[in-house]
């Protein structure tokens, strides 16, 4: 499984890893800040009694964070396997 990457492969590997990182960082920024910026407007909508602006800060963003962590783990595993550099 394990091998040493050539400089070109390393560049491609790190390119894919970095773009995954930037994608997740953008999503992180969205769920940490952007969505709550609109909390006053979102509070106009209610589901199960929850005003949505409140709900996003109390649960919605948290669920997104958990999903993002597992998604990062599995997407990075796929990249590792594609390049044959997984450590398991």
């Amino acid at each position, binding site marked *: 499984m394990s091998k040493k990457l050539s400089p070109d492969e390393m560049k491609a590997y790190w390119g894919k890893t970095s773009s995954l990182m930037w994608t997740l960082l953008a999503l992180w920024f969205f769920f940490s800040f952007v969505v709550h910026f609109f909390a006053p407007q979102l*509070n106009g909508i209610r589901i199960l009694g929850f005003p949505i602006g409140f709900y996003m800060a109390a649960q919605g963003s948290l669920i997104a964070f958990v999903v993002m962590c597992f998604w990062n783990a599995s997407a990075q595993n796929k990249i590792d396997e594609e390049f044959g550099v997984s450590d398991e």
Partner: protein
Amino acid sequence: MAGAAANSSFLNNLGRIYGIYTGTFAGFVILIGILEFFGVPDKILGYLFVFLTIGVYALIGWLSRTAEVSEYYVAGRSVPAFYNGMATGADWMSAASFIGMAGSLYFGGYDALAFVLGWTGGYVLVSILMAPYLRKFGQFTVPDFCGARFGGNTARTLAVIVLITASFVYVVAQIVGVGIITSRFLGMGFQTACFVGLIGILVCSMLGGMKAVTWTQVAQYIILIIAYLIPVIIMSAQVTGVPVPQLMYGQALEKIEALEKTLGIAKSHVAPFADARGNFSMTSMINYFALILCLMVGTASLPHILMRYFTTPSVRQARDSVGWSLFFIFLLYFTAPSYAAFAKLEVYQTLIGSPVASLPAWVSSWGKPGLALVGACDAANAAQIFPICAGVTGNGDGILQLSEFRIHPDAIVLATPEIAGLPYVIAGLVAAGGLAAALSTADGLLLAIANALSHDIYYKMIDPEADTKRRLVISRVILAIVAVLAAYVAGTLGADILFLVSWAFSIAASGLFAALVLGIWWKKGGDASGIFAMLIGYGVCMFFLITTEFYGVALKGMLGDIVTIVKIRGRDVAYLWGINNISVGIFGIPASFLAGWVAGKMTPEASPEMQNFIDSIRVPSGDVALAPGMAAKE
């Protein structure tokens, strides 16, 4: 080796072992319930809970004792992702999360959700920016990485300084938490309680270091999550008919909003960024986002959390483990707002407007002297029955008004079992959960501090020739000294220092985050980039912390209108542009990145060997390509 065989059979049977443990704990709770039924006094039940749980942690600590350096520092790198997630959950969730957060949400409403967001979202940063690469680097401490990446002892020492400042203020606050819980349930003095807590902390970590702390933290997580969920699940079933508080408190929120209108409360529980009159407030919004940023970035920089990811068997498992950590933390954090909502509904609906003579029993039992967490301050002499009423005079009409009701934030979680009409055994369970939360966090922090001193300062800088036996003796001695020192500070200064927890996040965020991110993601950055990122970030943060907290008036004299003076903690504290000084990281974090970037651009770039080293930690497989001057892996 018999030890190794026992070890692998332990690791292969983790599910069964912790399953049996959980079952035994449930049986123990039922047994105490039966004792209560037969009239055993509450105080004895409280003692049973506190000492039996500490006894179990001590037993795990004893069974995990070790004479191997890698087991002591990184649990032999054998902790599976799932269990490391649980251990991180316990490591992460402190007394402030377990007891304090629901109280903050009760009082702060929407604005306090900044804590819920800030204390979870940081794990995304840990997952994408830090954990896998630090695990691949594969040594013992966070300063190890800074030292290797940024040219040796200067960077290592700076990282140790940041680590100790952030972790020490944090651990003192944890021991205060242990002291409060122990003194409340055992009726002993606060200082004595701090030292009882200290014993509880040391028995877990002294003999087995990280290995012992890991397996006790898993045990502590199980207790704390059971203790947190049970009361509010029952409360939800009673109030709404459905035992899923996280979904059902929406109904409570609706009722609260309706009651707020009848009671004439302008600032709604669910209203974002509102001032006391209920109008939109820019300052409140800025503070909300500043606090979220500081807490999240702080999460991704606190060494006692980062070092948990050094313990997994592989890089892949380190990544999975961040997901599990956040999942286990999420279980508690997405429940906390429901505690606040159900408690508020009970207060608005049942208490306010009721005759003072016929209030529910929980008000008097949690309001009596010694606890003093609740007060119905209607009569002129209310302070004699409810010490929390001191200074509040009611109108004496025999009816409880909103302005006559006092409640301490800690009462929200602690009193919920009794509000729901549950027997005392559940209150004892909650105390055991709070104790588990405080002890586990204190253990992780103490170990981070002691390891930095024994490994980074003593072994790496003072006596690199020391043999294994000597290193472990030194580690344990330092651990004990730091623990006693922290307990002494906690016992002397008391509960007034809980605000230090938030400071710890700003300090770690300003001091370490930029250096770690640049170290991993900016291959060309030379030694100076990391050194200046730490130095300037930490310097700016500490400067603003100290001047705003202690020299507020002088700062206003110098800076004029951008400073607002707020009277808190008995001082004139300065808020720059209205920003609460717990969020000083908002100045430190950008300063740190800027300093690191400028220093990196102005000095020679990293050597080819160093860049080679960075390439090797970016890839999960293969060896770490050490640059000259770096110590080999142990």
